[in-house]
């Protein structure tokens, strides 16, 4: 009874959330903000696939976001590619960099994995800093949105918003599908008890590597979409502080939950937007303080706390 009621209210929440997103341009939500937040929601969901469902902390996810942002920006602006091809190229490239980094990083576990991915991301960052086509400190500016599939002009914010929303929903459903697949169950087993997964005969490294590549490719997709939305790619897309922010988005919303990273991304992006003109350098302080509070007192995040609360209530009702 209880779980059926829970499933019903969860389904209701999903449809309500989707309805708000679908109606966003008509209920006064600023489309650029919504598109930006959705891109970061894709990013946070991709990251959560790794930390929340596989138990791997990548501390360098901005590398893939930034790489795809640059590549899509350059292809669309300078090489004149269509937006869909630019986004696909960015996603594929991010996945390939993820494959290279993953092959090195999965040789160590736990906290070392985090340090290695951070160091590799910093290396990629220096490459972008020096590469001739990224525009150095100025970044790539003025990336046109172009025409999707040759017949949908993206110049209008509302049109582009629905494209971004469609990509977001597709990524979200894809991640739900992956987690619920037999492959996703193996990932969970690795998260819970890696030695046991090994002893059951799973080639753990291959599962982890595939999860890493999937996650980095989706992070790249988020970066590519962000470049189309805002029309630029800069060094801050690849900086370690962004790698930290995506961790915070997933943690604040709830690691290992589906809706958590989305809520986390909207909260952090909204907060940054709100604070940017008001407090200057204190944005960093506030983000840092949220980090500390989350780790000390709020490790389950929004969604995790909600689920735990419902479970407690369910127990009392029995």
């Amino acid at each position, binding site marked *: 009874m209880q779980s059926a009621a829970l499933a019903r209210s969860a389904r209701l929440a999903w449809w309500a959330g989707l309805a708000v997103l679908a109606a966003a341009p008509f209920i006064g939500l600023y489309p650029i903000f919504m598109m930006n937040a959705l891109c970061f929601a894709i990013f946070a969901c991709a990251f959560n696939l790794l930390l929340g469902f596989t138990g791997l*902390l990548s*501390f360098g996810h901005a590398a893939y976001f930034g790489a795809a942002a640059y590549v899509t920006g350059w292809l669309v602006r300078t090489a004149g590619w269509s937006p869909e091809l630019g986004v696909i190229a960015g996603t594929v490239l991010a996945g390939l960099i993820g494959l290279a980094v993953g092959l*090195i*990083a999965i*040789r*160590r576990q*736990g*906290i*070392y994995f*985090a*340090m*290695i991915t*951070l*160091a*590799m991301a*910093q*290396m990629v960052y*220096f*490459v972008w*800093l*020096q590469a001739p086509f990224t525009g150095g400190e100025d970044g790539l500016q003025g990336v046109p949105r172009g025409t999707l599939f040759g017949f949908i002009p993206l110049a209008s914010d509302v049109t582009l918003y629905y494209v971004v929303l469609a990509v977001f929903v597709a990524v979200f459903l894809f991640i739900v599908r992956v987690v619920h697949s037999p492959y996703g169950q193996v990932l969970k087993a690795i998260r819970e008890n890696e030695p046991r997964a090994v002893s059951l005969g799973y080639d753990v490294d291959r599962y982890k590597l595939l999860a890493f590549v999937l996650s980095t490719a989706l992070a790249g997709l988020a970066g590519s979409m962000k470049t189309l939305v805002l029309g630029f790619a800069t060094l801050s897309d690849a900086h*370690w*502080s962004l790698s*930290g922010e995506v*961790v915070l988005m997933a*943690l604040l919303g709830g690691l290992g939950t589906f809706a958590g990273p989305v809520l986390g991304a909207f909260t952090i992006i909204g907060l940054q937007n709100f604070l940017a003109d008001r407090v*200057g*350098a*204190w*944005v*960093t*302080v*506030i*983000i*840092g*303080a*949220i*980090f*500390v509070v*989350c*780790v*000390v007192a709020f*490790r389950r995040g929004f969604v995790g706390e909600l689920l735990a609360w419902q479970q407690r209530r369910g127990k009392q009702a029995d």
Partner: protein
Amino acid sequence: MEILGIPLQAFLGQLMLGLVNGSFYAMLSLGLAVIFGLLGIVNFAHGALYMIGAYVAWMSLEYFGLNYWFALVLAPLVVGALGVVIERTLLKRLYKIDPIYGLLLTFGLALIAEGVFRDQFGVSGQQYPVPELLQGATNLGFMVLPNYRAFVVFASLLVCLATWWVIERTRLGSYLRAGTENPALVQAFGVNVPMMVMLTYAAGAGLAALAGVLAAPVIQVTPLMGSNLIIVVFAVVVIGGMGSILGSILTGLVLGIVEGLTKVFYPEASSVVVFVIMAIVLMIRPAGLFGKEA
């Protein structure tokens, strides 16, 4: 005289600068390793503590007229006290849970510190003068050696070796090593383990601050100096493995020199060379050069 087409003076100058950077890598990775050993926490805030150390030196000169030698004592004490506060109020809540939370918490602390100092001082650097006693340079015949740089290398080597001696050769150090292996048993023998853990974090923080004071006259003091360094130090720690103290010292120094030499021969790669070496070491010997675990 030239080496591979590089003037000898430039070559030796970069070598010396590399050795100076290597001293900082050694001091920071040493503290990181000791803290990780006992607390099981990778202290992302280590770079921020180093930065605060440098700012304590700068502020005590600017506002109170306290000279370099005072700062050399004062900064480790101030930052060590800050370490005590951090450990008592925050870190001690995390000992029983997944170590990634320790990394995330200290990352948050680093952001807070960086933001506060950026708000106060902006991102442009502050100059800290070389202390009078160590100004000038000594002509060694084959090169001109800036006195202060020689002092930095000498002082940090001394500090590193002293730390090694305390941990490997004294009774206190034996408690520390035992606490790393099995804290519950050491506590049962009557050693105050929570106190020891607190003081270890404070000592690691003080070591980082000392490195910050030593660094203040050779680099620009900026709020970002810590985060730029800590990522390289992480790579150094991965290369060396956190198992051995002499190993961390040696790895830090050697990587500093390698970085310096890269600046001479292929400047474009100097900012990534440590990361490239890390990738190569991980392929050949995943546990790190001096690592114990398989």
